[in-house]
């Protein structure tokens, strides 16, 4: 009976994994084919099983001859890294304050933070543009980065995490002469590494995948992040080459996959701690 249960579990896990892996395999494999072969193989097993005689790097060489995609990837890496580093610091401090300190209107601020979490970005994008434009920051890197450094969702997640942080550790730090800020940076932060990594990855992904705000905030081609640059491949006025799209998507997916591989052991425990599921 135990064996049957085990087999059923692995079978189910295998089917679920397939659901996620097949599109990925199709994307990677298609990036090495011509459009003609991609569409001939659709609906057959060869869509996800390679036939080596059909594979080539043509789509990659063509794509890279048209688009400076690596410059845009570098831009995205810089933007995402700045957003993660600065955002984690600011949002965790805010979350810490909401979790541990008593100050006037604290509950109202918390309600405000929770209320803001349900407002979709599309609803705030126009007012945001008007504010940033009024500040003269349109088409500048600070104008692009500043609005998304503060993230109410992340503040809330940190607040939830710090609520259960053992107060004894902080008291011990204070007895050893640490200030409130010192306690945060030397005790709370290092002890919450999993949480920081989890929120960091979520922030990195959000920044990496963002499309609408960079289009609104930036118009200088040299400043564009990769998702906007990629769109040129997707929405060519007339010719859309599926093989180019797949090659571009494969290139863009690589940094994310590397990130997951490096930090995967922290992600699960961080998710459990924060209540993200």
């Amino acid at each position, binding site marked *: 009976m135990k064996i049957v249960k085990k087999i059923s579990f692995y079978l189910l896990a295998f089917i679920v994994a397939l659901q996620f892996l097949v599109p990925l395999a199709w994307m990677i494999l298609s990036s090495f084919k*011509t*459009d*003609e072969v991609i*569409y*001939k193989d*659709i*609906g057959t097993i060869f869509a996800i099983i390679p036939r080596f005689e059909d594979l080539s790097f043509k789509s990659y060489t063509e794509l890279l001859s*048209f*688009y*400076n995609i690596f410059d845009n990837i570098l831009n995205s890496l810089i933007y995402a890294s700045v957003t993660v*580093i*600065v955002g984690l*610091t600011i949002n965790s401090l805010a979350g810490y304050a909401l979790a541990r300190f008593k100050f006037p209107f604290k509950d109202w601020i918390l309600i405000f933070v929770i209320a803001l979490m349900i407002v979709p970005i599309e609803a705030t*994008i*126009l007012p945001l*543009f*008007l504010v940033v*434009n*009024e*500040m*003269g*920051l*349109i*088409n*500048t*890197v*600070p*104008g692009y980065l*500043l609005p998304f*450094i503060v993230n109410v969702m992340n503040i809330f997640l940190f607040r939830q995490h710090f609520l259960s942080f053992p107060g004894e550790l902080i008291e011990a730090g204070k007895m050893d002469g640490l200030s409130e*800020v*010192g306690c945060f*940076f*030397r005790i709370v*932060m290092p002890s919450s590494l999993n949480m920081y990594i989890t929120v960091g990855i979520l922030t990195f992904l959000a920044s990496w995948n963002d*499309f*609408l705000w960079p*289009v*609104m905030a930036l*118009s*200088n*081609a040299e400043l*564009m992040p990769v998702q*906007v*640059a990629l*769109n*040129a491949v*997707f*929405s*060519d*006025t*007339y*010719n859309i*080459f599926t*093989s180019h799209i797949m090659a571009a998507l494969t290139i863009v997916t690589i940094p994310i996959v590397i990130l997951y591989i490096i930090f995967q052991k922290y992600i699960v425990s961080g998710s459990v701690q924060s209540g993200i599921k």
Partner: protein
Amino acid sequence: MKKIFLLIATSLLALTLSACGEEKANEEIVVWTQASADHPEGKMFAERVKSYNEANPDKPQVKIENITRAGAGSGYIDKLNAAITANDLPDIFTLDGPDIGAYVDAGVLGELDGYLTEGFKEGFTEAIIDQGTVDGKFYGMGYSDSGVAVMYNEDMINALPEDVKALVPAVDEDWTWDQFVELSRKIDEFAKTTNDPAFENYEVATSLLLTDITAGAYELGTYYFTPLLWGNDANIVGEDGVTVDGVLNSEKSVEALTKYAQLFEEPALASATESEKTFHTGKSALSVSGFWYVSELINNYPDLKFKSLRYPKMSENYDGLYTPSGSWAFVRNGQIEDEERVQQIAEVMEWLTNDEASEQYYQMNGSVPTRINSVDVIDTNTDNPYHNDAWTVLKYQVEETNKSRPVSPGYPYLSETFAKDVILKIAQNKATDPETIKQYLDDAAKKIELEFEKYKK
């Protein structure tokens, strides 16, 4: 840790302050386009602007900004609309031809009559002038036209019996929708009985790309099939751009769409759910194809032998304009009132759309010329017979039969409703009788009329 925190805070403040100090040069003429900088279209604009700046060092210099669009134009359009709200539009920007009416209605665009060199406007093809004209005033200068042809798979046609083959017209011959349907029917009958390898992957006689409508690209349906109405002296909206009832659902419209519906009479000759790239992969013998198919098929499907035919007429005797046309155009910011500045802007717009530009755009990006004097740049004597064939058809249509889509302040809604509630619905429900088609048109007209109330002043 304290130091890191201070460093981050100081850097942020410094970045913000440094950016605040940046000022916009007053003299510069700023152009927004929806083309990305890396794309051939973006490169052709950059090249054109560069040549203007070099030729006119004493005049205000032109700066181009590429705002990438997604899908039908979102991203770029979102930014444009935000800039309108912020009163921060650039001097010149691009718009898709059918959207010009809506932006004129919103008071965003400035007219160009009176600012252009004498005879410049008349240098555009008729369809492009019509596309850019609202209430008799000229607003949009098209830099690229478009076109639709019928393409056929040469291997499949060669496999047909001689009497069926004889139904295929020559590249320079007109043909009718009835002939097109008859050819489709004969092909389908043959396909179901033959073992010829050309028909190995056969799924359907004709590809109409109706799946694009399902996927949300409504304009494609209107662009492809409004000509059926035009060719039968009907239209989707009246001359005033806001009257739909009695126009869209007229007897002439019903008649034209009943002919379109013949393709869905069992056994169906076209499908609302055709496979991806049906024509490209030899799954259909015929295809109603946009001009972008030409380079796509030649470059990405080298094994496919395809030939091109003119867009079918509704009736043999029809001699008006009827083939699909139109594309993106340059327009100017109507919020600028300084006469000298407007004159400078108009001069730049002329440079971006003149005969030389039109030829340059064709050579760099395959853009269909919009200037009468530039149409001859289309080369129909290349080494590639498929290219020559297709461009012979498209060139003829640009010169002789292209018609602009209707100008209406509510065009996006009009287009979406016509494509989704009429063109696609007929195909999905295989509605072939005039009564049902009339019902679809009545329902669509009622829906659009309700939406258009706001435009009727």
